[in-house]
C-alpha cells in the first residue's frame, strides 16, 4: 500500500487491484438469484448499499448488476465454483479484477476530499457505513465504498490510475481543507 506523496491533510493510499467480479443477474430468474444467495450472501444488498461477510463484499450497482469483491484468498475455490454455476444460467459472473484500481482514503476529512469532485450530497448524517456509490469525481467515473466516515475505499478504471493519483496529490495538499468561517 503506497501512500500518495506530499504534505497532505489526510492519508490516501494506493492499494492496486482487489479481486473482483462483475455479476449480472435478472431478478426474475430465481435460479441464478439463488446461486448468489447460497454462495455469497443470503440477504442481498439494498439499493446504494453493500453487504460484507467473510471477506466477500457484495455491492449493489444497478437493478441487474452487482460488484463482488474478495479480500480473502481462502474464498478462491468457492468463487470459482460460484462462477461456474452462474455461467450455466442466464446470469453472468465475470472476472473484472484487472480493470480497476483501488485507493483508500483515511482521516476525519475523508468526506471533504470527495466534496471536491463528487456532485452528490455527502452530508455525514446521510452516509452510512455500508454505502456503495457509483458516481462521478471531476471528469471520471468512480466507485465509492464506505467502510466508515473516516475510511473510504474508492476505485477508478485502471487506465485512470495516474490521473487519480495526480488528482489526490493536488486536492489533498495541506492548506486546501474546506473550512467555514466564524
Amino acid at each position, binding site marked *: 500500500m503506497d501512500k500518495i506523496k506530499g504534505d497532505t491533510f489526510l492519508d490516501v493510499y494506493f492499494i492496486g487491484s482487489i479481486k473482483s467480479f462483475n455479476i449480472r443477474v435478472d431478478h426474475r430468474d430465481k435460479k441464478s438469484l439463488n446461486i448468489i444467495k447460497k454462495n455469497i450472501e443470503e440477504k442481498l444488498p439494498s*439499493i*446504494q448499499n453493500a453487504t460484507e461477510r467473510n471477506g466477500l463484499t457484495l455491492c449493489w*450497482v*444497478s*437493478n441487474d448488476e452487482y460488484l463482488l469483491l474478495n479480500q480473502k484468498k481462502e474464498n478462491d475455490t468457492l468463487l470459482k465454483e460460484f462462477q461456474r454455476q452462474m455461467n450455466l444460467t442466464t446470469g453472468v459472473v465475470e472476472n473484472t479484477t484487472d480493470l480497476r484500481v483501488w485507493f483508500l482514503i483515511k482521516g476525519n476529512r475523508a468526506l471533504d476530499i470527495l466534496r471536491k469532485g463528487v*456532485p452528490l450530497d455527502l452530508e455525514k448524517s446521510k452516509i452510512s457505513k455500508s454505502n456503495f456509490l*457509483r*458516481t*462521478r469525481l471531476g471528469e471520471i*467515473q468512480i466507485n465509492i465504498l464506505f467502510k466508515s466516515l473516516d475510511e473510504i475505499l474508492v476505485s477508478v478504471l485502471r487506465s485512470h490510475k495516474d490521473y487519480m493519483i495526480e488528482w489526490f496529490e493536488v486536492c489533498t495538499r495541506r492548506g486546501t481543507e474546506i473550512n467555514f468561517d466564524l
Partner: protein
Amino acid sequence: MLNIYCPICQRDCDETELSCGGQAHLIRRDHASSDKDFYEYLYERKNGKGIIFERWRHVYGCGKWFHTARCTLTNQVFGSYSAKEVQPPKSILATIRRSRVDFKGWVK
C-alpha cells in the same frame, strides 16, 4: 444545472452524471416499414415548448436508461419513469395536470 431523480438508483443525480438521449417513446421502424415512416423515425423530432418527454441515461452511475417529463420553459420536472414504458404512465400525466391545468395530454 438540472437535478434529476434516477428511478433505478432511487436518488437525485446531478445533470453531469447523466447523458441525454433525446425524445422518448419513439417507435422503431424496421425493414418492413414504409419509406415515409422510416424517414420520420430517423429524422423527425418534436421541439416542444412546454412539457416534453425525454430519455436520460445514468452513465456515471447505474448505467440505466429512464424517462422524464420536463417543461422546457421552466425546467420543472414532473417525474422519472422506466425506459420500458412505451407511453408516459398515468401517474406522471396526473402530476402534470395538477400543476398545468391546460395540459392537453401526451401526443404520440
